[in-house]
């Protein structure tokens, strides 16, 4: 029951730009004070699971991702919706999401402890190498021009350096705003860049009266053949390789603290495009693109709990908030949990398994209602989304400052979209830039007097090799495309 409420809340907040799962969990934690442990945790985990799928709904239907993880869902989901295959895309997103989530939950149930130990071996040097490899995906996301894509990525990384310096605690590029000391908050940034700027562009098109062809086809219209409303078994099977690959990427990234679901989604999308026999179809309504992103970003959420349950160290913001909730409910996450309260651990596992089921059912019903969104006249819908963007930005930290940030990035996003500067690479740069700097600086501190030792670390060398291989492939591909 609480689980269902949680999943429903999660889908809802996931779908609304500006509200996201970590925030909803944070807000819900105090609400669970009065519940018993299992009910409270079920509610919170429900939100987490529902939230990862919810973001894809608005991404597909309106091209305004409800949460940043779903950015690359919109790449193919929105074109599909415009072709009248909105329901199909949403169903694919749901199935992929639940599959990815289930996969990472199974990994959590079975090999959490060894995997967590492996994750512990990832020190600053290893993480620097991993992030270097992750950054090479920028090339695959950069749109028509590699140079413009790189500019966007570097700009994103540059903006991630705003805030208190981690070593000296002095403010960097804050221009005297205390609010910027923790850096530019990513939620208002993504609301502005992903949701509001897209709405601005859609409003503009509407005003210029070339809106006729821009309207998303009503997913329920009678004249749409049935096959466009459902996902057939064949289609699911066709995407299964992608889903498995994405689930692996998502689980791996989720088990490592400091990278996050946003990057997992982008990486899987880029990987699926690279592996595909017809990469040119990506971005124009390829079902696999939707599946790739959703499987990965959902896989992250289960895997985030691996370090939390196995060693008591949270793997993400959601997990960090969950740890607080666990403690409040008398659950001490960490190495002892399996010994001291095994029934609780299995209770949590059962909750997670049930959560996936609920997600499938509630999501399946819910997306039909959400599909009705496209019946709302645009003249009403867009102003309301603008309003939600503002409210959502405000909810992040309860200040008008966040709203200001959101508006600035909405205008920036408008120009980036018009001038084909990929906002995807911008977000990757922003999301990875900060972690990369921190890990890089930690590595320098640790290895400044013994740099040779880095060469003897197998994980570091493996990822350096992977990075070089990836760069070489990209340059060769770009080269042959130009020739």
């Amino acid at each position: 029951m609480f689980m269902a409420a949680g999943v429903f809340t999660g889908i809802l907040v996931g779908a609304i730009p500006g509200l996201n799962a970590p925030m909803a969990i944070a807000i819900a934690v105090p609400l669970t004070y009065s519940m018993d442990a299992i009910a409270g945790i079920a509610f919170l985990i429900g939100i987490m699971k529902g939230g990862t799928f919810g973001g894809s709904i608005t991404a597909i239907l309106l091209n305004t991702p409800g949460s940043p993880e779903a950015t690359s869902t919109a790449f193919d989901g929105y074109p599909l919706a415009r072709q009248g295959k909105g329901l199909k895309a949403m169903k694919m997103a749901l199935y992929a999401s639940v599959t990815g989530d289930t996969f990472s939950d199974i990994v959590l149930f079975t090999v959490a402890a060894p995997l967590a130990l492996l994750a512990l071996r990832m020190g600053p040097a290893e993480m620097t190498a991993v992030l270097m490899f992750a950054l090479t995906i920028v090339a695959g996301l950069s749109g028509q021009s590699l140079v413009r894509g790189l500019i966007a990525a570097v700009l994103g990384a540059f903006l991630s350096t705003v805030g208190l310096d981690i070593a000296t605690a002095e403010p960097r590029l804050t221009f005297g705003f205390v609010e910027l000391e923790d850096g530019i908050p990513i939620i208002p940034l993504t609301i502005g860049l992903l949701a509001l700027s897209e709405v601005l562009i859609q409003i503009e098109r509407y005003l210029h009266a070339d809106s006729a062809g821009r309207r998303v086809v009503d997913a329920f219209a009678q004249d749409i053949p049935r096959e466009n409303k459902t996902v057939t078994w064949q289609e699911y099977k066709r995407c299964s390789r992608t889903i498995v690959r994405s689930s692996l990427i998502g689980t791996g990234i989720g088990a490592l603290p400091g990278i996050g679901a946003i990057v997992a989604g982008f990486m899987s999308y880029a990987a699926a495009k690279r592996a595909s026999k017809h990469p040119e179809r990506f971005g124009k309504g390829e079902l696999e693109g939707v599946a790739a992103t959703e499987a990965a970003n959902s896989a992250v959420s289960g895997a985030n709990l691996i370090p939390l349950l196995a060693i008591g160290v949270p793997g993400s913001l959601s997990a960090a908030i969950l740890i607080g909730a666990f403690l409040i409910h008398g659950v001490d996450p960490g190495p002892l949990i399996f010994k001291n309260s095994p029934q609780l651990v299995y209770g949590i596992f059962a909750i997670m398994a049930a959560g996936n089921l609920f997600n499938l059912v509630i999501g399946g019903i819910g997306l039909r209602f959400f599909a009705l969104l496209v019946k709302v006249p645009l003249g009403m819908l867009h102003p309301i989304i603008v309003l939600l963007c503002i409210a959502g930005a405000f909810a992040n930290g309860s200040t008008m400052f966040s709203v200001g940030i959101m508006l600035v990035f909405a205008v920036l996003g408008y120009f980036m979209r018009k001038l084909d500067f990929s906002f995807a690479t911008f977000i990757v740069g922003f999301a990875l830039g900060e972690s990369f700097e921190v890990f890089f600086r930690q590595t320098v501190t640790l290895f400044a007097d013994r740099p040779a030792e880095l060469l003897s670390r197998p994980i570091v060398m493996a990822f350096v090799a992977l990075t070089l291989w990836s760069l070489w492939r990209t340059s060769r591909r770009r080269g042959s495309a130009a020739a």
Partner: protein
Amino acid sequence: MRRADIVVGLLLTLFGLVSLFAIIPAQVGSAAGDAGVAPDLFPLVLMSLLTGLAVLLWVSRLVHHAKADEPAPLRPEDFFYILAASIVLAASFLAITHLGFIAGGVLTVAVAMLAMEGRHHPLRLVATSLLAPLAVFAFFRYLFSILLP
């Protein structure tokens, strides 16, 4: 795209140079602790990279001649539109700050709807612009216990 790239490239180059030589030195300290990296290393490296890429952008576009007459990505009316939109958003920001979310929200929705639909559906306009902010406010207040201003 060619002309746009050249203009944007030049603007970004300018932005990069100003940042490198004025903003970053003024806003970031350069003293490193006893071990480690100076706080301004990453901003400087990234900004240099950005400037370099920006130069690459406009130089490469200057060298290559345009293949065909592509439509310009930004028309004058686009600038007019985004300027107007920015003004509306800024006004709405101020209205919410000073009058509260509900009053500011009503104005924002009303202006946006007026712009999009004109006065074709007066009833819808009034109803939406009044009800939507109230609904959003109540939704945040009671479901998420976030008190909008």
